[in-house]
């Protein structure tokens, strides 16, 4: 047991949790203290050392007096026509948030029925050893967001959950629970960004998603924080019969950026697509661990992550696919492609396939490579310098995935920001749509 673990539990005394969440918290606190702290020998933490985090002082929670960040929000938010929830250092900001529909509520404002939904689903996907920081999320459980869509309903607008980290030294526990009942659908965007290059806090986040029979979800998780940020987060999903998930994840690098996806096919006919992009630079680190479990037959999963790792940055990708012996007729594909743009950059990629059924179709591939020399030659033969060509190809490498983002506002928000990282501007797209409009 480490000081960090103790410190973490001491923070709970500064919370005022709902009584109906108390038993979950208490049990999790015990579990958290009982878990061994990950070392370099711990399989899931091999390449992402937690020594720095261990030395981090866990500061108090964010305060209720929310600073005014109007301009900042204006500059950083995607212009989504959505139900918007803004959190500053983990504290809900009612002034900048929208009026919420009946389907969206904070745990602290939940009625009895909603509390029952939370108690039924919250924390049910966590496996202690694998999801240490999910256990911490439970121990720190103070409040959260419930999105509960009843059967046969479609949320009429996306839900846009924005989490801003200021320069303040604070600890944040961000919790979201999404429950889609049978035949319902929703679109949810979770967006993390920093209000200041100075980041002294630690963010622990957990989103749990239950997709009922025939229900479908589009889910986006944008980790666009500054490079001093320390964030450990996870998305846990259960898919029931004929459920559909279309997920997209993106992370810029940070001092510590570790995101776990745990996805379970629990009902036949489920389909999931998960795509991700990471672009750590300088001394940053990004670590995606994904674990897709096919527990039942006739499900499909398709996962593709791409990263560009530059300077002295480090990327870790671990993609596990587990196919239970009963999960016949599974179709599973996993691809992870990495581009190294510096000799000091590092990638550790590991696809893990565990297949116990005999009638399945699985494909996986992980590559770490340099740029395609044929493509570079083609661009140079049209007058682009070698470095221009390399930048263009690098952006193209991740833009291939950006192009597939289904939500157009999210696509139009991310693409120019990512392009800017590669020194490209957006004037052509603007001119093109301008001319397109004028031509009718």
């Amino acid at each position, binding site marked *: 047991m480490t000081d960090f673990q103790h410190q973490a539990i001491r923070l709970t005394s500064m919370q005022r949790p709902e009584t109906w969440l108390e038993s979950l918290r208490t049990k999790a606190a015990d579990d958290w203290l009982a878990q061994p702290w990950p070392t370099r020998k711990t399989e899931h933490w091999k390449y992402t050392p937690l020594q720095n985090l261990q030395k981090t002082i866990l500061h108090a929670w964010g305060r209720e007096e929310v600073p005014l960040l109007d301009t900042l929000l204006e500059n950083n938010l995607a212009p989504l026509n959505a139900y918007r929830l803004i959190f500053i250092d983990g504290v809900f900001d009612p002034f900048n948030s929208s009026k919420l529909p009946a389907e969206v509520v904070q745990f602290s404002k939940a009625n009895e029925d909603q509390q029952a939904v939370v108690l039924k689903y919250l924390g049910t996907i966590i496996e202690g050893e694998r999801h240490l920081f999910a256990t911490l999320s439970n121990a720190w459980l103070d409040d959260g967001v419930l999105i509960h869509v009843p059967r046969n309903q479609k949320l009429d607008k996306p839900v846009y959950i924005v989490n801003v980290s200021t320069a303040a030294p604070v600890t944040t526990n961000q919790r979201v629970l999404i429950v889609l009942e049978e035949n319902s659908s929703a679109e949810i965007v979770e967006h993390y960004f920093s209000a200041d290059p100075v980041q002294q806090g630690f963010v622990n986040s957990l989103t749990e998603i239950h997709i009922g029979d025939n229900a479908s979800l589009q889910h986006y998780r944008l980790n666009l924080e500054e490079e001093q940020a320390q964030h450990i987060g996870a998305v846990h999903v259960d898919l029931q019969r004929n459920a559909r998930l279309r997920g997209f994840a993106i992370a810029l690098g940070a001092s510590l950026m570790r995101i776990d996806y745990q996805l379970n096919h629990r009902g036949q006919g489920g389909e999931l697509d998960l795509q991700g992009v990471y672009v750590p630079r300088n001394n940053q680190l990004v670590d995606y661990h994904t674990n897709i479990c096919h527990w039942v037959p006739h499900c499909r999963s398709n996962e593709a992550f791409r990263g560009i790792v530059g300077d002295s940055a480090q990327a870790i990708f671990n993609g596990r696919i587990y196919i239970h012996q009963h999960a016949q007729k599974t179709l599973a594909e996993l691809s992870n492609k990495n581009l190294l743009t510096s000799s000091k950059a590092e990638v550790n990629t590991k696809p893990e396939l565990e297949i116990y059924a005999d009638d399945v179709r699985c494909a996986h591939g992980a590559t770490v490579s340099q740029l*395609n*020399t*044929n*493509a570079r*030659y*083609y*661009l*140079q*033969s*049209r*007058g*682009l*310098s*070698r470095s*221009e060509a390399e930048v*263009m*190809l690098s*952006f*193209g*490498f*991740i*833009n*291939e995935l950006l*192009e597939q983002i289904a939500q157009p506002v999210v696509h139009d928000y991310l693409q120019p920001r990512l392009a800017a990282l590669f020194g*490209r501007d957006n*004037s*052509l797209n*603007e*001119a*093109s749509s*301008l*001319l397109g409009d004028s031509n009718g």
Partner: protein
Amino acid sequence: MLRITDLFARVEEKEILKGLNLTVKPGEVHAIMGPNGAGKSTLGNVLSGREGYEVTGGKVEFNGKDLFDLEIEERAREGLFLAFQYPVEIPGVSNMEFLKAAVDAKRKHKGDSELSAVEFMKVAREASKRVSLDQAFLKRGVNEGFSGGEKKRNEIMQMMLLEPSLCILDETDSGLDIDALQVVANGVNAMRSPERSFIVVTHYQRLLDYIVPDYVHVLANGKIVKTGDKSLALELEEKGYAWLEDEAV
């Protein structure tokens, strides 16, 4: 314009060009024909500077400069253009971004300012019309999912936008149906001028019905073995290459 003197080149230790001589003057159209493996594509690749093609002898003078002193992109900016036999697909890089970067590189080289996005889009749309390529192709990834014909039309569109002084067409006719062939040929013919030269590398005489050459050369075993006017192409169509290959050995 272009003077190739006694050019030797190899790919992976294999000598492909073995003493090739060719002079192209401004405004001329030269067709290069020859059997498979004669070195036709190697010539285009060597001239444009592709990696892996090693020049082992001879020299090439392009607009008064030693071509081999120039990087790939410098050759392009100086006015050399190679229309690829197999244009490269580059998913994720939008065709219009690529085209604008190419046009801007050329303009900067000449001391002109870059085009604004709107100016460029107008020029690009005009060019796409001239090669009957839907404007939607400007927004797609470079050659991504284009059919063979669409790729070749994209090559010709690039040629129009870059206004090179020497255009090398490397088997641009391969894989084209007759309609696409006409579009490509019309594009080339529209660009013919007293200052601009063409080297049309082809396997078949068919293309030369549309792009009428001033000279026809036969490339066999790494060098030009026969030169004539357009009637030579018809003769080759009839007799094949074997009689010339024998001469070359």
